[in-house]
């Protein structure tokens, strides 16, 4: 039950994008097409889950025994950067069109604060190994959910009659704000 709570807390109630406002850059940048947005969500989820696993192991098996907690930022960034490199290679190998659709935002997962945020939350909240993994999956699912909803709305927006001053970035930010407001409705549920 505790694990289910952690999952839904990370995915919906404390959604990384819409409640903590982490990872806004790809949320706005890659959300103009549903298919590539979903793929971005999947890539980010993969990085999040592996980051959760590896950084938990590194923190609890290496940093804590050696009294090196102050190195957590550097160590986590190292983990994330390597993972993103790996994901980039993998996507380039598997799907060239997807590689091009994600473009610069793929290497930018490295600096996606949602992922570093995840690694730091794990430490802060003192999660066990299983809890960490579930938390990573939940955070990834939440990110995918948010970016997919956003992409769905933006695809509809292409057909809508938007005043000229609001076209492009402004209406996107307005939509993001309203989405965040809507997700605030979940707060306090868990």
């Amino acid at each position, binding site marked *: 039950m505790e694990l289910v709570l952690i999952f839904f807390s990370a995915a919906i109630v404390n959604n990384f994008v819409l409640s903590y406002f982490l990872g806004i850059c790809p949320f706005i940048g890659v959300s103009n097409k549903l298919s590539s947005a979903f793929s971005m969500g999947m890539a980010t989820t993969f990085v999040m889950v592996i980051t959760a696993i590896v950084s938990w192991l590194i923190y609890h098996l290496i940093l804590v025994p050696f009294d*090196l907690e102050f190195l957590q930022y550097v160590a986590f960034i190292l983990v994330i950067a*390597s993972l993103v490199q790996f994901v980039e290679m993998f996507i380039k190998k598997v799907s060239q069109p997807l590689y*091009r659709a994600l473009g610069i935002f793929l290497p930018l997962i490295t600096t996606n604060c949602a992922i570093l945020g995840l690694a730091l939350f794990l430490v802060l909240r003192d999660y066990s190994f299983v809890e960490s993994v579930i938390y990573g999956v939940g955070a990834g699912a939440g990110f995918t959910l948010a970016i997919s909803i956003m992409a769905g709305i933006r695809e509809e927006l292409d057909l809508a009659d938007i005043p000229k001053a609001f076209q492009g970035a402004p209406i996107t930010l307005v939509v993001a704000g309203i989405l965040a407001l809507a997700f605030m409705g979940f707060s306090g549920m868990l």
Partner: protein
Amino acid sequence: MDTSLFIAIATMGGLGFIFAGGLALADKKLRVEENPLIGKINELLPGANCGACGKAGCYDFATNITEGKSAANGCPVGGDETAIEIAEMMGVESSSTQKMLPRILCKGGHAEAVKKMTEYYGPISCSSMHIVSGGDKKCFYGCLGGSDCVNACPFNAIIMNDNGIPEIIEEICTGCGMCVKSCPRNIIEMHPSDRQFFVFCKNEDDPKTSKDVCAVSCLGCGICARKSDGGVDMHGFLGVVNYEKFDESKIPFDKCRTGAIAKIN
């Protein structure tokens, strides 16, 4: 203090080494073989990813060149210089890039076009006029004179002349095509700069109607189509030059009663 520093360096170094090893392995397994020319050509391109070549970006264009799907001179932004460099790299001949210029295919200014009985009061913008009542000219195909193209031009290469018809200053024009998009009546078309003659009318109505609305309309008599052996096609009551088949010497410019088909200048 010293030991903890040492441990920290050793730990981070070890971690870095492990990850580096993992990535090196992954690189071996997942390496995608690419034509090394793609990267070199990509460096020669402007890198603006503007899409003027019709491809998804500079990298995509470079890929297409190496596969022989795009011509070396396909990048209008890079111009001749880039085209020659790419052609050298690919070992092919490059013909120079053709500059594209917009042409305004309507001559019906204040002097020629017949006005409506009613007057137009409203925003002076072609798009508004086009939506509301079609402006104050009787012709439903011609230039509205609302300066939308003048305003759309990022380089101030279009001016509105005294007759209410926009003119393009060819020396300043970059051929970006913004004016083409701004025209609600699709009067502006992009053409290679060496194309010398056009049908300066878009009126598809029958001879009597088109004669009534404008002094320089294409009546649709079809004489140019008959005399030019397929150099001009008739689309309803409008002559359209077939630029793939025409023979300029056969096009009867002097036979056109309204001068709708004419050379520039």
